[in-house]
């Protein structure tokens, strides 16, 4: 198990190193000079040079790459070209919105999807199954921004249970903060839950056809007991894969929903920074998201091994 974890960790570090190189290279070849962008087209050549020196843009690429990576390792993501504030502060602020939102919607989607998938699988072909599968079909088909607007219309404008947008901030208390994240979390969670429920159902159905489920029934377990004790854990492996992918998506991919609800999240930060050629922010946020995806994959790998003993011996 330890060997497996170490091996996964090594590949995590290698992935990170490669990702940082690729991100740096892509940002480097992207057109646009941040210094001239910041000072406008009429800037004096010597002012530009001074600013470039200040931003470190006059150094060689290798030096700049090393400085960038070295800074990140120490938590220093550089200074935003646009706002002249440390990028790490900007990211931290946004992360406090995006990360709870992602976790919140992931929790919601799991809470909806697992029971729905299990229910549908145990009622295969019957009305309950058809109903759940129909609902998931709709859940996948509906664009989440439209669904988000419907939520706003019903729960914010008509019922006035929630505010239509904006983020209360954690200093207003956990409840207030979570409340302002609830509608966006639901909007994000529902399509994810629909996908997850379908994966859960088909995975369980596959497992129910396995020989060991028959063995379990021959022991005297009821259908439901066999499903719970022998089916679920085996069915979890493909579900974990999807969960991992969904978390990564939710962290960064909430951009549209952030826009609909005026949430100051990572997605909006990266969007604004790209428009403003604030390359250092783009670089850092991208790297952070890559880091998150890779760490989530690592966690999923460990979860696989926890679920499936056959993986533990592998190196």
């Amino acid at each position, binding site marked *: 198990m330890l060997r497996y974890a170490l091996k996964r960790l090594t590949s995590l570090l290698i992935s990170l190193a490669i990702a940082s190189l690729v991100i740096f290279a892509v940002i480097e070849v992207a057109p646009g000079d941040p210094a001239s962008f910041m000072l406008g087209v009429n800037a004096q050549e010597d002012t530009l040079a001074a600013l470039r020196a200040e931003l470190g843009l006059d150094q060689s690429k290798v030096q700049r790459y090393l400085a960038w990576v070295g800074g990140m390792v120490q938590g220093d993501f550089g200074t935003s070209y646009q706002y002249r504030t440390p990028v790490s502060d900007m990211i931290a602020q946004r992360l406090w919105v995006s990360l709870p939102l992602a976790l919140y919607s992931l929790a919601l989607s799991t809470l909806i999807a697992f029971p729905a998938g299990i229910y549908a699988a145990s009622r295969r072909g019957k009305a309950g199954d058809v109903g759940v599968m129909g609902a998931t079909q709709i859940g996948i088909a509906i664009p989440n921004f439209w669904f988000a607007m419907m939520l706003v219309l019903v729960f914010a404008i008509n019922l006035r249970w929630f505010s239509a947008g904006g983020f209360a901030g954690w200093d207003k208390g956990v409840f207030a903060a979570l409340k302002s994240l609830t509608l966006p979390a639901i909007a994000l969670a529902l399509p994810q839950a629909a996908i997850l429920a379908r994966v859960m159902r088909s995975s369980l159905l596959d497992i129910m056809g396995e020989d060991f489920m028959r*063995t379990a*029934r*021959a*022991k005297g*377990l009821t259908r439901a007991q066999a499903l719970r004790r022998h089916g679920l854990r085996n069915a979890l492996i493909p579900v974990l894969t999807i969960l991992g992918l969904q978390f990564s998506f939710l962290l960064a991919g909430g951009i549209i929903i952030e826009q609909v609800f005026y949430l100051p999240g990572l997605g909006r930060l990266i969007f604004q920074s790209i428009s403003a050629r604030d390359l250092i922010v783009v670089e850092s946020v991208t790297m952070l998201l890559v880091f998150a995806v890779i760490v989530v994959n690592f966690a999923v790998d460990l979860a696989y091994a926890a679920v499936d003993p056959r993986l533990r011996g592998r*190196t």
Partner: protein
Amino acid sequence: MTLLRIDALNVQIGGTPILSDVSLNVAAGEVVAVTGESGSGKSMTALSVMQLLPDGAQATGAVTLDGHDLLQLDEPTLCTLRGNTVGMVFQEPMTALNPVMTIGAQVAETLRLHRPDLNADAQARAVLDRVELHDIPMARFPHELSGGQRQRVVIAIAIACGPKLLIADEPTTALDVTTQAQILALLKRLAAEDGMGLLMITHDLAVVAQMADRITVMRHGAVVEHGATAPLLANPAHDYTRALLAASTHRVALPEASSDAPLLRVDGVVRDYALPRTRLFAPARHHRAVDGVSFDIPRGGRIGLVGESGCGKSTLTRAILGLEPVQAGSITLDGTPVTDPSVRRKMQVVFQDPYGSFNPRHRVSRLITEPFHLLPEPPPDRADRIATALTDVGLSPADADKYPHQFSGGQRQRLAIARALIIRPELVIFDEAVSALDVSVRAQILDLIAGLCAQYNLTYLFISHDLSVVRTITDRVLVMQAGKIVEDGQTETVFTAPAHPYTRTLIDAAPTLPQLELTP
């Protein structure tokens, strides 16, 4: 006293009759075998007793176990009987256990369910000891055990609560012959010790002859004959039983082998597989799957290769087909290394699974002409070649436009042989080619191969774990153990006077039908 009485059992699935009027009895301490070919309904009979029929199946009649009419009981009551009064062992030990649960927990689960008064873990250990798994810790997972050990765990689960009836559905079909002998002995011992009734489902008449007190022969969902083992085998009343017995010990008439110029030469072949590294900088360790194997196959030779799973026969086969690099030695066909593309068209192979080895979306004409792409240019008489190939294997030229699903398993194996022979290869490799077939179909395919030998002077390597098949279809046999050829000799000589102890073990472990010579 009758423990299990099945009386006029009828089972339908969606209106299709699966079982009709099946009746049989099992007394305490008695071993009753239900035998028949695939589709005879023998497994459905077993599942009816467990009341684990597939969804949508409707059973009528009576299945009385220990005084309970199982067809009348509700599901909760049935759950208290399953695993407690009746236990079941399944065919495929590799998949019958939950891969993510330790074997101890799986055995203990049955005990917890039915015998809350016992200390489940201690009792589970005792049961594992009873099935002779003394050295295996309870914390092992199924994937850490061999097939035979896993089947012992399945048996342990089934007998943990001391059931009155044990149902074993093809319990040894997936196992090697020596493991089969051990598992059969174990089942027999457990039944005798506990006075358990044993209802054994198997297609293998030799196993039946060795195990059962009484036999029920089934065909197309109905019982054709039943009776005590010895008299029934010695003097079967029903034509079908007689045909089954004849097919089980079918001997083909092989024409005389014609020539002795070597065609295939395997010389000192070694195949190593790298094992996963245990330490980062230590040299990688290897598993030697094939260890210095040398033999020749003369033109017109019919050579058998036998050995248990893991002995390296599949690796050797792949190496001969040029699909596997070898670390030492050489394999040549007519003096050319088999890895050379020009050799490919001189060798063809027939695989075990007649279902998996055809693309279901292609027509027969396309499937059996697949080897033509090995030729420099396709033959001009394509249609004639297809017609000849199909006629040769006992099918009709009109079958060329059909799809594989329109054929039975036996017919598909004929197609596979047609595909192998259509480019007139110099060497054919039969890799467990008849292992998945019913005995009567197997006999037909063996006859077909013998007939083709007479017609085309085939040279082949016949790989099988089934000794009785190899004995009839080959002139010479190679016995393989742990990557080495331990015996190489004329088939009859090897079978009647084995020189190597391992060969003797194999032959002794294989169940036989001794009474059959008495049958007219």
